[in-house]
């Protein structure tokens, strides 16, 4: 049987490429940004949607140096706390590209899964690397997705609640992303135009993550 995934790959309809721009906003001015985003994005008549997620990053390491470690990001929603939805996200290394491309591009698989994923990954040989909580707002305009969120460090591992978290910084992370099938470069232009409209509040840029790790 030809499974749906290989059919998707063949017809190039499986969304697997993420186009990304990142920036941040100081908490003091976050409401201004939210207001502007609400005006710019779809569903302006409704209150912005909030989200609250717990992300655990798992890593699979080889014994030898040739095997690159593989990172799986397991995320679950804390928002209805009794019925969380889980998913695994795999992110490839991001390409900065040349000046003609306005956004970061990286491989991206989002796979919804059942709630025993942590046990499953542990048994597969994955080990927990780090974890954090993300809370914030979520907008969309067409297929562009904008999140304005705060990152919380976990003081203790395990189930997160208000007492075991502390905010990383006094800023919220702003991300503009589209997940699309490969080869749709014109999205980057749309995203650039959108990012222009948020200046000078937020500078959404392609941030080289490799450069950050050197610092």
């Amino acid at each position: 049987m030809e499974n749906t995934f290989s059919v998707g790959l063949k017809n190039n309809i499986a969304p697997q490429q993420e186009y990304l721009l990142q920036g941040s906003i100081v908490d003091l001015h976050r409401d201004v940004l939210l207001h502007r985003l609400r005006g710019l994005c779809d569903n302006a008549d409704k209150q912005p949607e909030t989200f609250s997620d717990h992300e655990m990053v798992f890593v699979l390491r080889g014994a030898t140096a040739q095997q690159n470690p593989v990172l799986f990001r397991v995320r679950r929603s804390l928002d209805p706390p009794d019925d969380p939805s889980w998913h695994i996200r795999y992110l490839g290394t991001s390409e900065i590209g040349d000046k003609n491309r306005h956004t970061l591009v990286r491989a991206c698989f989002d796979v919804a899964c059942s709630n025993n994923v942590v046990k499953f990954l542990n048994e597969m040989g994955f080990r927990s690397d780090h974890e954090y909580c993300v809370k914030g707002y979520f907008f969309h305009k067409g297929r562009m997705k904008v999140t304005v969120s705060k990152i919380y460090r976990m003081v203790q591992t395990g189930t997160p609640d208000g007492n075991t978290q502390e905010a990383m910084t006094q800023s919220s992370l702003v991300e503009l992303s589209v997940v699309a099938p490969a080869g749709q470069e014109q999205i980057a232009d749309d995203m650039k135009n959108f990012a222009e409209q948020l200046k000078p509040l937020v500078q959404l840029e392609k941030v080289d993550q490799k450069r950050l790790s050197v610092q």
Partner: protein
Amino acid sequence: MGVVCVYFYPVPEGKSGQQVVDGIQKQIELLGAVKTGNFCVDCETFQAGSGIQNTPQRQVNILHSSEQPASCFAILDTGTCLVADALFDGLMQKLKHYYQQRKGSKIESKGQRYEYGDFIFKVGSVSQASNFKGILVEIEYCPCVVAGDCMNLMKEMSQSLLGSAVAEQQSSFLKTKTDMIYTPADTMSQYLEHFNNFKKATSVNQAMNR
């Protein structure tokens, strides 16, 4: 979505698999069931290489079912079953340095699907690398969600269809899950159990032939 029992139907000496399948299908049609298309359950096995830190070498089985076309069931040899989007196949490819697909390991059960009242019957012939391996009959009782509740009811149905010898088999897996809510993942675990039995049987046969 209800409780499913998967039965192994032995092929008696001197009969071909197709003949037996036809016989069962005739029996089902006599009962008054209606043909509702085809079904397919397939399974691929991935074996861990030696290079994972601090973990015994595990085996991951990836199963797909035509009944849940957008899902993918990943079952470890420890019994843990992860239900995920079909895109999980893509994730397995990202792990190819750690988990390699076994060549010729793909095994599948294919055949007719029938509906009768609240029951669904599936008669599948199992093949691995286009070699016929045996017959699996799946009986699903849709309205019930707890396996323990309808075990005797299922037994009665399977007795009338497949004979008491077959009906007596009960999956060791189902016995452990009598009072929990039944999920499609449990069905996949049953299939995996049977698939593994088929593989074992082949390796034993091969050993004997040598």
